[in-house]
């Protein structure tokens, strides 16, 4: 849990390990429980991972893991996400028939609710370019300054910070130039 919270390359390594070792089981259970396709189960697993990652990095941390192991929790969230994916695609999922964790359902529901918001953000973020997106991701994911400098080829720390600031400013500039998008995000998504 600490590794996931720490961020950076360590967090990525943990998620890689969990995905390689657990996704087969989680997805298999989701297929068996909901009757979804394999690719739908994989998508569901990725959504479940996002919920867990976000939850672990919040202040309440890993409280939800007092109820179950991480693997059980991920499986439960994957089943619910697969079930929701099928419902969204107008397919009739098989009744899951087991009790799922409320926190997992909440995370998945939130993810689906914010789908439109993510589309709007995606459109807005297109204006800052791929390089800027990468810089912001590295900062957001807690990569160390050295790793960011190496990854992006910056000469020193100040340049990296200045680049981050410029990317943020570029995004703000887009929002200033498009007040309708800005107000849409404020009012409907992150108000």
């Amino acid at each position: 849990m600490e590794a996931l919270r720490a961020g950076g390359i360590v967090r990525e390594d943990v998620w890689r390990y969990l995905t390689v070792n657990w996704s087969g089981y989680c997805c298999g259970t989701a297929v068996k429980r909901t009757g979804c396709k394999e690719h739908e189960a994989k998508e569901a697993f990725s959504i479940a991972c996002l919920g867990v990652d976000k939850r672990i990095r919040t202040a309440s941390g890993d409280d939800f893991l007092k109820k179950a192991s991480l693997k059980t929790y991920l499986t439960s969230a994957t089943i619910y996400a697969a079930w929701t994916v099928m419902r969204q695609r107008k397919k009739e999922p098989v009744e899951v028939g087991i009790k799922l964790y409320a926190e997992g359902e909440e995370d998945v529901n939130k993810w689906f609710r914010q789908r439109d918001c993510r589309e709007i953000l995606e459109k807005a973020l297109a204006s800052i370019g791929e390089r800027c997106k990468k810089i912001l991701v590295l900062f957001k994911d807690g990569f160390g300054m050295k790793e960011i400098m190496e990854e992006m080829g910056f000469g020193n720390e100040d340049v990296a910070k200045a680049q981050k600031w410029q990317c943020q400013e570029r995004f703000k500039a887009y929002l200033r130039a498009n007040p309708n998008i800005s107000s849409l995000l404020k009012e409907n998504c992150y108000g």
Partner: protein
Amino acid sequence: MANEELGDKIEAWLKGQLPAAEAAAFQAALAADPALAEEVELHRLTLHAMDHLSEQHLQQHVLAWMEGVDIEEVKEESEKKPLAFPYQYWFRVASALLILTGAFVFYQIWRSGAEKQKIVNLEAQIRQQDSMLFELKQQAAPDPAKFDSLSRENEQLRQQLRGATKDSGKPSEPFAYYSKPKNLGGSVRMGEESSVEQLLRAGDLFFQKSDLEQAEDKARAALKIEPDNRDAIRLLAHALFGQQRFLEAEPVFARVQNAYAQSSNGAKEAAWNRLLCHRALAADAGQRALFKAALSAILKEPKHPYYRQAVRIRTTDRL
């Protein structure tokens, strides 16, 4: 640079990382400056955008890492319902154990209560018959048929009591404060053993194995050869006492007491066992009176070897 610093400050404020005083000042500035408020709003949306980028980045990675992963065919065993409460299983096990333990304890209490009641009833019947036998003995010409019949019934009741106390594993009340002697085989002499000594040794072995009837037989056989043999009298007295034949045991203990010097430990042990016989027969008023007299005699002698037991008896019997 000033703008960058402002950006850092806004970010720290949004993340709740500003010290209290600075946060309050910033809040005031925010209320007074609409441009700053607008800047903060835009920065907040920028942070959400960064969150989104981070999520997207992780999701892409997860999907890529899953490329080579085979979806497991989940078998029935692994389809067990995830427990809403992880301690539920242990809670169930503990509850089941608790219920079983409770039922067992309840059964034991009920059983021991029933056994106790049975023992109490048998003891009461025996006491009553002892009293009747005592009264018959006191008569100048007792009816031998009636005496025999009462004795037989008494013996049957005693056998039942022995069985009941064996089952319950607890000694019956008359044996409280009775200490089984370790050696009733008489003194060992050099040379060839006499037949009396052999009988006493065998009797002692039977007594130690709680085969009291055999011990009694051996003691009686020894007494036929040597009617005044002190060890044989002592063995007989204890064998009778062990069979709860207190009425018969008491005069034999009196013989033992007389056979020893008045102040010797042997005489005091015999006197104590006589007291216990009187106590066991206390349903009879005469026996009760003898018991009380013997007890108060011991209580007057703090140095008496049975003084402490006498004090305990006085407490338990509420005398």
